[in-house]
C-alpha cells in the first residue's frame, strides 16, 4: 500500500482567501493511502520545503501531492526537494489550486470543493506514478542564429564573446536588417548606421562567427543540444572570395530597373548590386530574375568589367548541413501592406509615404542624399502630416490588434528632426494616444511638442485625397470635438509592424509555437521570456513581439546568456516523461507518427512474439531523445499502444474518475 503525503499551500492569501485550506487537508486525509496531510503559508519557502522533507522521512512517503500553484511555476522546485529527501522526483504531483482554482473563483465554498476535487485527482494519479530516471545527452558547442538584424547580430556577438561558435543565417544578401535602413535613433538621435555598422563589422571579423548571408534554413531536425540544420546558400552568381566590392559592375550593368529594396523601392538599382555601401559582406549579388545574361543569355558586361574575375553566371545553390546545440530565432519584422487602407491614399499619391520610406528620404545615404523633398515632384514640402496607428490597435480586422510600440517614438523623432532641419515646415501629428514610457522617452516626446512646436492633434484621419496639387486630410479633432480639413504637402503613415513572413516557416521548422499574429511564443511570458517552449530554441528581437532597438538589444543579450548557459553544459538531463509504444498492441498504422511534432516516431519491421505467435510486424518506435512528451501520439493511437511515462492513459483516466466521483 502506497503512503501518500499531501501538502496544501496557502500561497499567502492567493489561495487561502478563496480556498479553505484546512478543509482541503481534512478532506484529503479521508482518501485511501493518504497518511499525512498538512497546510502551510508558503510551501515553496525553505521552511515549507523542510516540512515536506521531514514528512517524507518520518512517514516513509512513497508519493507526494503538493496543492499549490501551476506546475510550470514550482514543479521543478518540489521535485528537487523530494530528491533531497531521498524520494524519486517523479513521485511528486502538483494539484494546481491557484491558477486553476483560487484565482478564478470568488466563492470560498465553490473554490474549496474544486480544490478538493483537484487534490483528489492528483492523489489518484500519484498512486499510479512510477519512479523515473532521467537520461543524459551531449551538447554540440555551436549555435545557429536565424536572422542577421540587430537582434541576431547582438546575440551572435555575445555568444561568440563567450567563446562559442555561432553561425548567422540571413536570407538577404547583407546583414543589418531593418536597423540599417534607419536614419537616426531615439531617444538620443544618434545616427543608426554609426552604431550599427561597427557591430556588423565586429560580427564579420569575429573568428567565432560565420556569416551565411543570402541563405535560408530549410530543415531542422534533432533536439536540444543536438540539432541538425540544412541550410541553402542561394546562388549569388558571384565568387565571394574574389569580389572586392569595388562596384564597377554596378555602374556598367544595363539592366537598371530593379526596385532598390534597401531604399524601400524609392529608387532603382542594377541587376548586379551591393545592397548598400556598408553592406556586410561587401560583395555584389546578381538578381537572377532581372539579369539579362541569366534570363536571355545576352550581355555579360559585368563579367568583362570585373577585374577580380568574381562573376560566375553558372553558380548553383549550395546545401550545407551543420550541427548545433542551440538555435536562436531572430527573424524580425516588416511593415504591414497598406492595400486594405485605401482611405490614406498610399497607392494613389506618391506624397503619401510610410515612416520607413521617410527614414530613407531623410538619410544622407538615401535616394535624395538626405534632402527631404516631395517624392512626386522633388519640390520642398511646407507642411507634413503624420498619421499614427495605421493598422495598429486595429479592431476592424484590416490591420493588427496590437500596438506596434515603436511608432509614437519614431514619429516624435521624425517630427523633431524635420522641424530642426527645416524650421519653415509645419508638422502635424494625428494620434489616438501618445504612448512613450521608457527612460528619457516621455521627455523626448515633450521636446517635440514644447520645443519644436509639433502640432499634435488627437483624432483619426478618415480620408486623404489630392486637391489642387496638395493633399487634404479629412479628420476629427477629438479634443475640440470638431471635424477638420488639413492641407498637407506630404503625409507620413506610421505603419504597423508585423512578424516577418519567414517567422511562420521558421517556427514550424523549429516546432516553436507562434501566436495568432505570427509572433513566436515565449516559454513563460514573465519568467522565461527569451526561451521558446521547445527546449534549445531561443527568441531574440521583434520575432517575439514589437520592440524598439534598446529593448531588442537587451533581449538579444538575454537570449545569448541563455544560449551560453546551455552550451556551457557538458551534459544535458533528458526528460524521462516520454512516449513509448507497446509492440504487441501496435497496428503500425502511422497515426502517431503523423501527429508527432518532433519527428520522434519511426517505424521498424520487427519480429514480434505475440503470445507464441512469431511474426514480422511494422511497429512504432519512439526516439526518447527527440520525444518531448507532448502526448499527441497517445490520443491519436486507436489501440492504446502509445503511452506516456508520467502521464499514462490509466493515470489520466484515474484523474478523470477522481474528479467525477462525488
Amino acid at each position, binding site marked *: 500500500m502506497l503512503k501518500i503525503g499531501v501538502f496544501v499551500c496557502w500561497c499567502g492569501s492567493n489561495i487561502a482567501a478563496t480556498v479553505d485550506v484546512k478543509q482541503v487537508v481534512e478532506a484529503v486525509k479521508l482518501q485511501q493511502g493518504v497518511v499525512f496531510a498538512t497546510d502551510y503559508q508558503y510551501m515553496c519557502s525553505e521552511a515549507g520545503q523542510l516540512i515536506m522533507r521531514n514528512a517524507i522521512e518520518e512517514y516513509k512517503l512513497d508519493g507526494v501531492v503538493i496543492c499549490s500553484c501551476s506546475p510550470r511555476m514550482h514543479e521543478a522546485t518540489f521535485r528537487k526537494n523530494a530528491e533531497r529527501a531521498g524520494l524519486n522526483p517523479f513521485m511528486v504531483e502538483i494539484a494546481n489550486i491557484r491558477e486553476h482554482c483560487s484565482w478564478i473563483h470568488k466563492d470560498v465554498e465553490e473554490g474549496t470543493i474544486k480544490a478538493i476535487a483537484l487534490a483528489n485527482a492528483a492523489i489518484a494519479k500519484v498512486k499510479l506514478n512510477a519512479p523515473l530516471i532521467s537520461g543524459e545527452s551531449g551538447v554540440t558547442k555551436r549555435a545557429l542564429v536565424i536572422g542577421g538584424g540587430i537582434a541576431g547580430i547582438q546575440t551572435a556577438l555575445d555568444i561568440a564573446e563567450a567563446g562559442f561558435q555561432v553561425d548567422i543565417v540571413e536570407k538577404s544578401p547583407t546583414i543589418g536588417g531593418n536597423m540599417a535602413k534607419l536614419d537616426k535613433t531615439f531617444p538620443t538621435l544618434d545616427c543608426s548606421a554609426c552604431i550599427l555598422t561597427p557591430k556588423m563589422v565586429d560580427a564579420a571579423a569575429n573568428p567565432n562567427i560565420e556569416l551565411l548571408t543570402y541563405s535560408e534554413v530549410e530543415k531542422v531536425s534533432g533536439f536540444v543540444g543536438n540539432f541538425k540544420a540544412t541550410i541553402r546558400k542561394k546562388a549569388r552568381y558571384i565568387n565571394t572570395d574574389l569580389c572586392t566590392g569595388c562596384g564597377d559592375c554596378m555602374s556598367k550593368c544595363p539592366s537598371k530597373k530593379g526596385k532598390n529594396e534597401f531604399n524601400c523601392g524609392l529608387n532603382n538599382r542594377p541587376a548586379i548590386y551591393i545592397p548598400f555601401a556598408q553592406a556586410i559582406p561587401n560583395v555584389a549579388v546578381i538578381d537572377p530574375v532581372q539579369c539579362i545574361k541569366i534570363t536571355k543569355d545576352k550581355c555579360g558586361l559585368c563579367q568583362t568589367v570585373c577585374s577580380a574575375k568574381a562573376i560566375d553566371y553558372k553558380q548553383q545553390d549550395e546545401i550545407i548541413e551543420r550541427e548545433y546545440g542551440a538555435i536562436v530565432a531572430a527573424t524580425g519584422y516588416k511593415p504591414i501592406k497598406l492595400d486594405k487602407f485605401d482611405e490614406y491614399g498610399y497607392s494613389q499619391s506618391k506624397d503619401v509615404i510610410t515612416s520607413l520610406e521617410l527614414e530613407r528620404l531623410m538619410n544622407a545615404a538615401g535616394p535624395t542624399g538626405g534632402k527631404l523633398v516631395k517624392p512626386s515632384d522633388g519640390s520642398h514640402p511646407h507642411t507634413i502630416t503624420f498619421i499614427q496607428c495605421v493598422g495598429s490597435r486595429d479592431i476592424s480586422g484590416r490591420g493588427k490588434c496590437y500596438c506596434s510600440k515603436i511608432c509614437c517614438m519614431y514619429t516624435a523623432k521624425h517630427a523633431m528632426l524635420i522641424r530642426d532641419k527645416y524650421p519653415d515646415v509645419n508638422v502635424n501629428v494625428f494620434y489616438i494616444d501618445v504612448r512613450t514610457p521608457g527612460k528619457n522617452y516621455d521627455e523626448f516626446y515633450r521636446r517635440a511638442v514644447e520645443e519644436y512646436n509639433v502640432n499634435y492633434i488627437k483624432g483619426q484621419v478618415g480620408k486623404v485625397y489630392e486637391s489642387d496639387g496638395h493633399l487634404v486630410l479629412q479628420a476629427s479633432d477629438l479634443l475640440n470635438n470638431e471635424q477638420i480639413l488639413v492641407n498637407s504637402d506630404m503625409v507620413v503613415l506610421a505603419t504597423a509592424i508585423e512578424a516577418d513572413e519567414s517567422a511562420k516557416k521558421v517556427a514550424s521548422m523549429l516546432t516553436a509555437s507562434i501566436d495568432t499574429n505570427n509572433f513566436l511564443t515565449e516559454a513563460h511570458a514573465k519568467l522565461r521570456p527569451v526561451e521558446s517552449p521547445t527546449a534549445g530554441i531561443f527568441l531574440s528581437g521583434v520575432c517575439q513581439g514589437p520592440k524598439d532597438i534598446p529593448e531588442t538589444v537587451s533581449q538579444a543579450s538575454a537570449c545569448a546568456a541563455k544560449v551560453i548557459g546551455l552550451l556551457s553544459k557538458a551534459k544535458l538531463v533528458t526528460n524521462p516523461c516520454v512516449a513509448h509504444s507497446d509492440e504487441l498492441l501496435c497496428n*503500425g498504422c502511422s497515426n502517431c507518427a503523423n501527429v508527432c511534432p518532433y519527428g520522434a516516431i519511426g517505424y521498424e519491421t520487427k519480429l514480434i512474439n505475440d503470445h507464441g505467435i512469431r511474426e514480422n510486424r511494422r511497429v512504432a518506435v519512439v526516439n526518447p531523445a527527440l520525444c518531448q512528451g507532448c502526448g499527441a501520439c497517445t490520443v491519436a493511437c486507436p*489501440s492504446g499502444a502509445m503511452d506516456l511515462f508520467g502521464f499514462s492513459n490509466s493515470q489520466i483516466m484515474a484523474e478523470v474518475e477522481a474528479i467525477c466521483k462525488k
Partner: protein
Amino acid sequence: MQGLELKLKERLQKLLDDGTVDCVIGWTKGEFIYDVTPAIFTKESGLDGFVYNSFCGANLSKYLVSQITSDKKFAVILKPCDTYSMNQLITEHRVNRENIYIIGVGCSGHIDIDKVKAQGVSGITNVIDNDNNIIINSIYGDSKIEKASVLLSKCQSCKGSELKISDEIIGEGIKTPTCDERFDGVKKLEAMTAEERFAFWKSELSKCIRCNACRNICPACTCRTCVFDNARSNVAAKANATEFEEKMFHIIRAFHVAGRCTDCGECSRVCPQSIPLHLLNRKFIKDINEFYGDYQAGEESNQRNPLVNFTESDIEATVISDKEGK
C-alpha cells in the same frame, strides 16, 4: 449479372493457373441464391462454388488484414465503394499492397434480401438482375420488382461508379440512383433537441446485443487488440456503472474511426438489430467536412485525414509533416 459472374470466374481461374495469385477472396454460394458467403478459394480448392450475384454486397477488403503477414498473393474482388476501404487500409499499412491483385467490378447496386421478402415474395429460387426492374423467380411464380426499392441501404447513398484503386476492371457499372441525400439522416438528428437526440440514441443503442458484428466487419476497425478486448484499457471487461455505459461502445468506436471511416455502410448492413450505426459515423464525417473542408477517406491511398494532418496554413503551424519520422 450472370454474365459478369462467368467473366470473373474465367479470369480468376486464369490468374490462379498462371500463378499471378495463390488465392482468391470472393463469395461462395449458399443454400439459396441470396445467402452468399465471403470465401477464400485456392489453387487446390479451385473455384468450385464461386458465385457473384446481386447479393454480394459485402465489402471484402477487410479480409486482407489478417493476411498481412502471409507471403501468398491474393486476388480480391472490390466494388467501387469497397475500393475506398482498400485505399484507407493501404494508408494505414494494414494490408500488404504488393501481395494484392485488385479486380474492380462494375456495380449497379446490390439487393437487400430482407427488403425483397418484405414485399411479400417468398420461396425465391432465382433473381434476374439486368435492369431497373428485377425479375424474381419463386416456387409460386415470377414477380417483377423495382430495383431501387430493394437496394441495400448503403447503395441508396452510392458514392459513384468510379473504382478508386484496381489492377484490372471487369464489367461496367453505373452510379446507383440515390434516393436520399447522404447527410439527410444526420440533419434530422441535428435538428432534434439534445433530450430528443439522447432519447433516440438511447432507444436505438439499447437494442445492441454486443455481438461485435459491426466491429468485425468494419474495415477501419483493424486493431490487433481492440480496446474493448484489452483488460488494461479501462473500458473492457468491467461491469457497467450505468445503464447507458454499454452504449459507450458505439460512441467510442465512432471516435476511433473518425477521419478514417469511408462511410462504406457495412456496420449498419450487418447489424442484426438494425441499429442505424452509420449515422454516428456520418455525423463525424459531416463535422469534419464543415471544420476542415470536404474530405473523403480512402479517396486515394496515402492521404492524410484532417485529424492527423498539419499544414503551414494552420493557425499554429508548429506541427508539419516534413519531419524525419514517417
